[in-house]
């Protein structure tokens, strides 16, 4: 099932245009500092081995999401869209970094992606009123309908 869902969100034909010039990986800041897979290898693996190999690989998440790869791609392959599709698929298989699970759980629980102690005091220090509460009921209902539970329990 998941196989099909990736290509539903991303036109696979675009990948065939990749001729492995490595401009994407040459520009990739994450690859300079971490053992990321990089778009070039990701695309090659999707084409030659099928995407299973990629979506089960933790290194898929080593990424700055800076999109410089797509910006430099001479074939204008929508790499950012591809990576979103692949990571969504990885997430459904439970391949999600722990920090990211915490972040989206927080969002689903509180309606915000940050939390701090003594928020009101801090805002008062800058002369600001307390932050009105987030519309958490509506957000949770929306998330129930979009199928977010496929990935994260909340």
């Amino acid at each position, binding site marked *: 099932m998941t196989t099909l869902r990736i290509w539903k969100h991303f036109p696979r034909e675009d990948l065939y245009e990749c*001729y*492995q*010039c*490595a*401009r*994407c*990986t*040459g*520009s*990739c800041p994450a*690859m*300079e500092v971490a053992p990321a897979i*990089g778009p*070039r*290898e990701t695309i090659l693996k999707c084409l030659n081995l099928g995407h299973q190999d990629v979506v089960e690989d933790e290194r898929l998440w080593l990424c700055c999401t800076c999109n*410089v790869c797509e910006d*430099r791609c*001479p*074939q*204008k392959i929508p790499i950012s869209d591809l990576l979103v599709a692949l990571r969504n698929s990885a997430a459904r298989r439970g391949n999600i970094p722990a920090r990211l699970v915490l972040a989206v759980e927080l969002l689903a629980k509180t309606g915000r992606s940050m939390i701090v102690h003594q928020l009101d005091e801090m805002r008062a220090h800058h002369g600001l009123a307390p932050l009105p509460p987030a519309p958490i009921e509506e957000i949770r209902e929306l998330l129930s309908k979009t199928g977010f539970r496929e990935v994260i329990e909340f």
Partner: protein
Amino acid sequence: MKEPESLTEKTSEHNDLRIGVYVCHCGKNIGGTVRCEEVAQFATALPGVMLAKDSLYTCSEPGQEQIKSDIREHRLNRVVVASCTPRLHEPTFRAACQSAGLNPYLLEMANIREHCSWVHLHEKDAATEKAKELVAMAVSRVARLMPQFEVTVPVARKSLVIGGGIAGIQAALDMADAGYKVYLVEKAGSIGGRMAQIDKTFPTMDCSICILAPKMSEVGRHPNIELLTLSQVQEISGHIGNFRVKVFKRARYVTDECTACGECIDACPQLVPDEFEAGLSIRRAIHIPFAQAVPSKYHIDMHHCLNNQGIVACDRCFQACQKKCINFADRDQVLEFEVGTIVVATGVDVYDPTPLTELGYGKFPNVITTLEFERLINAGGPSGGELIRPSDRKRPRKVAFLQCIGSRSKRASPYCSNVCCMNTIKDALLIREHWPETEIYVFYIDIRAFGKGFEDLFQRARREGVNFIRGVPGEIIEDINTGDLRLLGENTLLGSHYRYTMDMVVLSVGIQPRKDSASLQRMLNLATDTDGFYMEAHPKLRPVDTTSGGVFLAGAAEGPKDIKDSVTQASAAASRANILMSKGEVTIPAITARIDRDKCTGCGLCARVCPYHAIEGGKELGYYRVVEAACQGCGVCVPECRFGAIDQTHFTDDQIVSQIDRVLANNPHDKILCFACNWCSYAGADFAGVSRMQYPPNVRIIRTMCSGRVSPAWIDRAFAGGIGAVLVSGCHPSDCHYNNANRETARRIERFWKRMERAGINKDRLRLAWVSAAEGAQFAKVISEMHEALARTPADKVHKEADKLREFLSKKSSSQ
């Protein structure tokens, strides 16, 4: 809309018809599927047919003799041959007719092989029935054919060569040597072009200017060549054999007495970046492009001269010139002359990599392009041939070449520029030869060493220690203190990230069509390919011709090319032009459009769609007329006329309507009527036949020269007559044989669809498909799809919609 005419009425006009029909077995090619005797028997009964015969090989000597003797013996005045595609043997049978005294335009062929027996191999009955109908269609058409006489127009024995690079030089010399007068027009101050800028050539490492300069001087002194430098073609009118050319010649401000002594340069106070040196050095306003320039004369770049306001504010060069060759009163002029042929050799531009900000070109001084590098290592260049880098004029110890800059990219040019790989390898070897301690790195995607001697050169570079790294850098970082460059990228073969520090980076930039190529394209009615280069008439068999008669292509204007290919093509273009000029006349097929002056209202719609500007006239004149020598016979103008004033010779409305009516005569609701253009779609259907691709037998193909000839009135007639489906097919949009005349096809079909909607007819029953000559499979697929759709449509629905259309049309005509 014309009233439908019945078949009997029409033939009664032609009761003196004596048609001979010949049905060919083509061995088992046709005879194995189609019962040819039965078809011949059927043909005997068709109106106007005097005799019908079947033979084993009609194209053989005995087969042709049979036709000839029948023409003489039975006084046949029309001939139908039912055999293979007319694209193959029409010339054969036309010649046979002619030798027997029958006008060759009174022959018609029924294609019962490629379009019938080969594509319905296992449906003998259906194929035989289809063959009968194809023969009947041919008989209807042949009855309406008229004798035609091809006109010949004289070809002026003079040629125009546009562009003075190596291709233009070679073409000019070849034609001039053959004895024809050549005007060579070059926009720069000297001929030589890109080749003059290059240091060495690949794959044999000859010195570029050393082998070019002798050819340049030959042009300069050739009695048959009139060299026009600082000149640009401004206007071209006329047609094959007789072009009228206007050339704008900029003032030189230096007379022909100039001996190129150079005294004037030191006197000139105006400094300008030197374009010949790719901006790496400066020149004066008075200058000569380079030492070997032809003509070897100085000229003043008035744009940068202090006297550019029209008054003499500075006369230092005048004072310095002992022979007094400076003439500030010199003026631009427009020259006019006539030529019979034209060779376009306008060359290419070089990609400017500034937009690729990650590479730092234009920002980091030590990032240069290959063209700049050529000047940098050239003995005549700004550094006197010393390899130095721009930032500190020191010799670089580590040099990187980056391949595919501006090529194979949707962000620049999508095609491979063809010359960059070998050029880089040549440059790398040059560095190796003169400065062997230099480390050289070539960052590449694919090395394309496809030509003669190319792989050898590549292997030599490897043996000599040039480092080839697969994976071009994504980013270049400049060290602000040293000017050194750090290259970040991935070595894809090792799968590892690299960081190299280089002293200098050379961007191997691609080549592009000239920025101003559109103006010449319009003047000469040239087509361009999707990359913007001028398009050849046929990619394989007519590689230097254009679709405009008498106009030929040479060099990189047609597509990226190296020097050898440019020279080869230039000689080919010259030879093609020489054929025309040596014959001195050219025959034009009698398929041109004709305008009936009595019916013409002078509205000019036809002239607007003509891709060749072959229709002249105007409102003031009250009518338009076709210039026969310029008309290429596409017929796109005919459907455009609202007053029925235009028709196309040999493809008249009457002739084609007779074919349509024949298709409508029996069970039209089961059939698909297909209009196919001669060059792509008809040939595509032929290709389906040659490849034995099977498709349903209910399609009937009518050939026109261009899909632009297909008149909406024909489609009306077919649907009103109850046809099941109609297919209009032509060349792919940019491949049209007639200079994008099929844009009109698309426009007319769009409009027709809207009309079908208004009339309440399912618009899916009319299909427009682009099928190239190579797309037999596509043709078969389209027919199969249409057949399936038709099979789902009940016959009474087809009839009901035909009624609706007739009602709609009659309402329309009464409201007008």
